[in-house]
């Protein structure tokens, strides 16, 4: 699955599933609240019934007034009576805190029912009855709702994946077609480019060609095409490509690549400053290192002004390449690191250079920074340390 496809699918799934789940959670929550009210309502009516029974007993005691007045008691139920000034009279329990303004409330897994009495039998104005909440029906309800949510979530996740794939299919097809086109094009480009470059060398060495300047231009154009071929091949096959991590002498490789770009540098009449520390070694695949250096150098040359400056520094800690180009606006710096996006359209290219650099940087966990502002030196720094 492609990166962009993965991202699109992930975004779609996130939005679709979160909104669906939110809706279901809300519905389930409302349903649970209503059901809970009903279940507790049943328990409340049980308590209310007990309160009425106690009230009848209090009335009987009040009317007979035969000592001792035996207070009614029930298994699993506690009750207490309070006078009009809310002072405790008697009871099977003595709660410290009573919510006088509520007829029913819960506290520490207990259901409390406050029953107002009038007339005040035995002086009791309030009768408070309590019993532990029967959590069994509530637990069963929660279990059923959790099961329902799980089923709904599973169903909608599968549906979302199916829909997501359905929606991204046209995009996937387009990308496949484009990749196939690039693959075919690069394949077809390889042979003629190699032929041109070989024959230029032959013309220069064996036949001592007279048109040096024209030959130089042909060589630059062919090298550009050759690099483009390498980049496209790298992008296409970088995921499956088997990397060979070796201790590579970056100093030598950088000099070699500068030699490769010498025709381009000369063509632009650039002032090259080399600050290459000798024998800088790094464990990296050679092709990755070449793609990294080539793309930074290529951009630094391509977007440099004629007779500008190119500073190349290599230390055991970093690679730093500066050029005196037009510079990049701050808001475009992050944008140009995406594939097929370029800040300056005046030069040729597909806008894949920085994308390749970022891929290599990400693979080896290097630290990449690009600092630039219009008409200032543009600096690309890669720190080897993670």
């Amino acid at each position: 699955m492609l990166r962009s496809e993965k991202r699109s699918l992930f975004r779609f799934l996130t939005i679709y599933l979160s909104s669906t789940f939110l809706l279901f959670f809300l519905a389930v929550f409302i349903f649970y609240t209503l059901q809970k009210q009903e279940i507790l309502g049943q328990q409340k009516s049980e308590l209310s019934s007990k309160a009425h029974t106690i009230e009848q007993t209090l009335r009987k005691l009040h009317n007979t007034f035969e000592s001792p007045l035996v207070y009614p008691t029930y298994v699993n139920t506690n009750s207490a009576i309070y006078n009009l000034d809310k002072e405790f009279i008697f009871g099977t329990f003595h709660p410290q805190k009573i919510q006088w303004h509520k007829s029913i409330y819960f506290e520490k897994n207990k259901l409390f029912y406050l029953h107002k009495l009038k007339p005040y039998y035995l002086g009791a104005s309030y009768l408070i009855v309590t019993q532990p909440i029967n959590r069994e029906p509530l637990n069963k309800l929660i279990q059923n709702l959790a099961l329902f949510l799980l089923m709904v979530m599973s169903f909608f996740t599968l549906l979302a994946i199916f829909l997501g794939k359905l929606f991204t299919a046209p995009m996937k097809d387009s990308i496949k077609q484009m990749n196939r086109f690039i693959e075919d094009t690069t394949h077809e480009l390889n042979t003629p480019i190699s032929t041109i470059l070989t024959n230029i060398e032959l013309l220069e060495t064996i036949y001592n060609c007279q048109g040096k300047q024209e030959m130089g231009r042909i060589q630059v154009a062919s090298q550009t095409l050759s690099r483009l071929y390498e980049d496209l091949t790298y992008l296409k096959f970088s995921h499956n490509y088997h990397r060979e991590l070796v201790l590579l002498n970056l100093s030598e490789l950088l000099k070699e690549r500068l030699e490769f770009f010498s025709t381009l540098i000369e063509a632009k009449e650039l002032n090259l400053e080399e600050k290459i520390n000798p024998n800088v070694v790094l464990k990296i695949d050679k092709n990755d290192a070449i793609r990294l250096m080539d793309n930074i150098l290529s951009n630094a040359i391509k977007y440099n002004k004629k007779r500008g400056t190119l500073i190349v520094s290599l230390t055991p800690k970093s690679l730093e390449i500066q050029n005196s180009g037009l510079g990049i606006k701050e808001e475009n710096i992050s944008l140009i690191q995406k594939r097929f996006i370029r800040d300056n359209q005046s030069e040729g290219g597909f806008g894949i250079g920085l994308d390749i650099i970022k891929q290599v940087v990400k693979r080896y966990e290097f630290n990449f920074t690009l600092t630039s502002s219009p008409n200032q030196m543009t600096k690309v720094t890669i720190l080897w340390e993670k």
Partner: protein
Amino acid sequence: MGKITFLLLLFSFTLRADKPFIQVQKNCLTCHTEQKIPSELIYRRYLMQYSTNERIKQQLIPFLKNPTKKTSIMPKQFFLKFPEKKVLDLNETELQESVNAYLDYFDIKKRLKMQ
């Protein structure tokens, strides 16, 4: 029967033998027993209507100072059988103490028991 009840009440009050109880005995229960006026019934009526001792006192003391059928808590039918209350010859302190003792004697908190 009335005499026996009176003697029993007298005995129970005497056991507690303090001044307010003697006053209740002298000022209230003598007449109540002689005229067979059920003091317990009156207390229950007050309790049922006013709930707390403080509230009962607030109603009972003005009534005892100026007893009339109209201000009595008892229904009209009660006075068909029992005579109307006469004004007590007690000063404020004696009246307060007597009422407190009366309420304490019947106090519901002391009478209620757990099974």
